[in-house]
C-alpha cells in the first residue's frame, strides 16, 4: 500500500549541492511576490478580525456604535467575511501557491512583475470592496457582496495570476507531477470560472430570483470547496512529508482523494437551501453529493495520518508541522460535520442558526487558516533569508488561536443547536429562541478576543522577521530541540 512513487518532496537529509543551490535560487526568485501577498494577507487578517469583533460585540449589545450607518451590523458582518475570505485567506493561499508552484515545477519564478501588479490590483479590489460594503453599495448576496467596481478588479488580478501559472507550468522541469500540483492547477482553473459565472449572473446581469439562490450557493460552497480546500490540501500534502522527511503514504489514495473531491464537492451547494423554493431533485443531488464527500475526506485523512504515524513527536518541535497537522485534522472534522449537516433531519435543526457560523469557522479557520500559518512559518524564512526571531512568539500564537478557535466552534455549536431546537418548536415564542443564544454569543466574543491576541502576536512576529531582528541563526526556530535522530526541516 505504501507506494513510494512520489518523488517530491523527499527527505531533506544529505541533499546534493546542485539541489540545494537550485532550491535557494528558486526561493530567492519568489521573494517579492510571496512577501507582498503574505504581508497583505496579514494586514487584511487584522482588519477582518477588527470587523469580526465589532460584529460580535454588536450582537451582545446592539446599541454599541449604532449611530453610524457605516458601522451597522449588516455592513460590518459582510465586511468581516470579505476581508478574511478575499483579503486574508485568498492572499495567503495565492502567496503559498506561488512558492509551491515554483518549487514543484523545479524552476525559478518567472515574470515576478506580473505577480506584483496582480498583488497591487488584488489589494485595491479588496479595499474598494470593503469600502463599498461600508458605504452601502454591498449586494447582500452572501460571499459575493463586493460591488461590481471591486469584483471586476479582483477578476483582472486573478486573470494575471492564472496567466502566470500557465507560463510556470509550461516551463516546469519534466518528470512526475506531484499531488499538490494537481490541486493547485485545479484551484487556478476553478476559481476564475466560479467567480466570473457567479458575478455575471448575480451582480452584472441579474437572473430571476428563483435561480439566484442556486447560483449563489453553488458559488458560496465552491469558494470553500474548490478554491480554499484544494490550496489547503496542496499545502498539507507538501509540508507534512517535507518536514518529516518521508514520502506520502499512498500515491493511489491521493489520486482517489483528488478525483472524488472534484466530482462530488462541486455539487454540494444546494444543501444550504434545504426546504427552500427549489425542485426536490436539486436539493437531493446536493445531499447525496455531501454524503459522497466522505470518500475524499476519509481517503485524505488516512493518507495524511499514515504519513505522520510514528512521528507525532515531531509536533513537539516543529511549528510548521504543528499548525499543519492541526489544520489537516480539522479538515476531516469540518468535512464530516458538513456532510452530517446535509442530512435533512439534522439540517432542520442546524439550518438558519449559529451552528452554521461555527461550521464555517471550523472550515475556513481551523482547517485553512491554520495550514496557511504552517506554510508561512515554513516558507518565509526561506524566501526572506532570516529565521523567525522568537520561538516564544510562535508558541503564544499557536496556543491563543488554537484555544480561541476551538472555544468559538464549541460555543457556536451549542448555542446553534439550542437555537435550532427552539426554532423547531412553534410553542416557543420567537423572542425566546433568541434567549437561548445570548450567553453563547457572549462567550463567542471571548473566543474572538483570544484570536485577536493571537493575530497581533503573529503580525508582530512577521514584522520582526522582515526587519531581521536578532542575530543570525544557523538553525530554524523550533519549539524544542528535535533530538539527534530526527531529520531537520532546514532552511536551505
Amino acid at each position, binding site marked *: 500500500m505504501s507506494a513510494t512513487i512520489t518523488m517530491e518532496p523527499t527527505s531533506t537529509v544529505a541533499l546534493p549541492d546542485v539541489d540545494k543551490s537550485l532550491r535557494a535560487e528558486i526561493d530567492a526568485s519568489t521573494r517579492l511576490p510571496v512577501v507582498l501577498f503574505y504581508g497583505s494577507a496579514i494586514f487584511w487578517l487584522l482588519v477582518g478580525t477588527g470587523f469580526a469583533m465589532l460584529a460580535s460585540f454588536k*450582537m451582545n449589545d*446592539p*446599541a454599541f456604535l*449604532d449611530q453610524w*450607518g457605516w458601522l*451597522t*451590523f*449588516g*455592513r460590518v*458582518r*459582510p465586511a468581516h467575511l470579505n476581508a478574511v475570505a478575499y483579503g486574508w485567506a485568498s492572499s495567503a493561499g495565492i502567496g503559498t501557491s506561488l512558492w509551491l508552484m515554483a518549487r514543484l515545477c523545479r524552476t525559478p519564478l518567472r515574470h515576478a512583475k506580473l505577480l506584483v501588479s496582480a498583488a497591487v490590483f488584488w489589494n485595491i479590489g479588496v479595499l474598494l470592496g470593503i469600502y463599498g460594503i461600508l458605504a*452601502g*453599495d*454591498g*449586494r*447582500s*448576496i*452572501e460571499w459575493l457582496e463586493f460591488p461590481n467596481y471591486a469584483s471586476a478588479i479582483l477578476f483582472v488580478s486573478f486573470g494575471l495570476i492564472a496567466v502566470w501559472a500557465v507560463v510556470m507550468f509550461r516551463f516546469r522541469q519534466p*518528470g512526475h*507531477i506531484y499531488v499538490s500540483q*494537481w490541486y493547485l*492547477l*485545479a484551484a487556478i*482553473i476553478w476559481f476564475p470560472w466560479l467567480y466570473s*459565472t457567479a458575478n455575471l*449572473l*448575480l451582480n452584472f446581469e441579474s*437572473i*430571476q*430570483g*428563483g*435561480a*439566484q*439562490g*442556486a*447560483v*449563489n450557493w453553488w458559488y458560496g460552497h465552491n469558494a470553500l470547496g474548490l478554491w480554499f480546500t484544494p490550496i489547503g490540501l496542496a499545502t498539507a500534502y507538501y509540508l507534512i512529508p517535507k518536514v518529516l522527511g518521508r514520502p506520502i503514504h499512498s500515491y493511489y489514495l491521493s489520486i482517489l482523494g483528488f*478525483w472524488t473531491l*472534484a*466530482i462530488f464537492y*462541486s*455539487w454540494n451547494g*444546494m444543501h*444550504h437551501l434545504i*426546504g*427552500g423554493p*427549489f425542485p426536490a431533485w*436539486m436539493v437531493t*443531488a446536493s445531499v447525496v453529493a455531501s454524503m459522497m464527500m466522505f470518500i475524499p475526506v476519509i481517503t485524505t485523512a488516512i493518507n495524511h495520518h499514515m504519513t505522520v504515524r510514528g512521528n507525532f513527536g515531531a509536533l513537539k518541535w516543529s511549528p510548521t508541522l504543528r499548525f499543519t497537522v492541526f489544520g489537516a485534522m480539522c479538515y476531516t472534522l469540518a468535512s464530516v460535520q458538513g456532510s452530517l449537516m446535509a442530512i*435533512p433531519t439534522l439540517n432542520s435543526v442546524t439550518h*438558519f*442558526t*449559529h451552528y452554521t*457560523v461555527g461550521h464555517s469557522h471550523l472550515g475556513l479557520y481551523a482547517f485553512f487558516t491554520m495550514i496557511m500559518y504552517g506554510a508561512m512559518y515554513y516558507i518565509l524564512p526561506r524566501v526572506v533569508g532570516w529565521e523567525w526571531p522568537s520561538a516564544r512568539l510562535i508558541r503564544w500564537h499557536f496556543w491563543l488561536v488554537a484555544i480561541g478557535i476551538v472555544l468559538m466552534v464549541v460555543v457556536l455549536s451549542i448555542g446553534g443547536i439550542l437555537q435550532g431546537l427552539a*426554532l423547531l418548536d*412553534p410553542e416557543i415564542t*420567537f*423572542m425566546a429562541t*433568541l434567549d437561548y443564544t*445570548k450567553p453563547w454569543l457572549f462567550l463567542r466574543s471571548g473566543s474572538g478576543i483570544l484570536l485577536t491576541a493571537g493575530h497581533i502576536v503573529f503580525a508582530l512576529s512577521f514584522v520582526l522577521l522582515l526587519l531581521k531582528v536578532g542575530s543570525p541563526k544557523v538553525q530554524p526556530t523550533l519549539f524544542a530541540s528535535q533530538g539527534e535522530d530526527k531529520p531537520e526541516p532546514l532552511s536551505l
Partner: protein
Amino acid sequence: MNRMSVIIAGIFITFFCSWIGLVAYPYLALGRYLPFVDEDTGDILPPPLSGLAERGQQVYASSGCIYCHSQQVRQIGYGSDLERGWGARPTVARDYMRERPAFLGTMRTGPDLSNIGARQPSVMWHHQHLYQPAVVSPGSIMPSYRYLYQTQKIEGQMAANAINLLPPSAPPEGYEVVPTYDAEALVAYLISLNRNYPLPESPEP
C-alpha cells in the same frame, strides 16, 4: 498521473457537470417565470413593486438585513415556518421572479420576513421599530437604524411624517424625528412583503 492533458481535462469535465446542474439548469427552469394573472380578479401575481418599495429593496440590501432575516417559508416537514405564522403557504420560485437580488437568507437571528407586510401593515409601527427595536420588541437584539432618520427642530406644526417615539429614544422637547427618503422606502418595501396570494403551484391550504 503525469499527463498534464488528462489532469486538465478531468478538472474541466467534473466542474462542467456541476455548472450544468446547478447553474445552467436552474437558469433555464427557474429563471424564466412569467407572472400569473388571476382570471377572476385580474390580479398580476406576484404584484410588481412600487418605485418607492423598489428603492427600499436596495436599502434592505445595503443595510444587510439578510444577515439576520430570511425570506423563505418552507414546506411542512422542514421546520415550523407555517406553524409560526410566517406565511399562509410555502414560497415557490415564482415568488422571487422580480427580486434582484432575492433575499432567501441563511440565518434567523430575527424572524422570517417573507410576509412581514401582512403581519405588520402599520407604517408607524415599522418606523418606531426601526428606530428603537428593543422598546417595541423587548429582548430584541436588532440594532437601531436611527441613522436613517433625522432629528429636526419643530417649526410651527409638527411634520406630518414625524415618528411617535417613547423614552429613552424620544427626541428632546421642541424637536421631532422624521424619516429620510431611504427610511420611507425601506418601510414601503417591508410593507410590500406579502406573499399570501395564491399561486397555482402553491395554493393556500
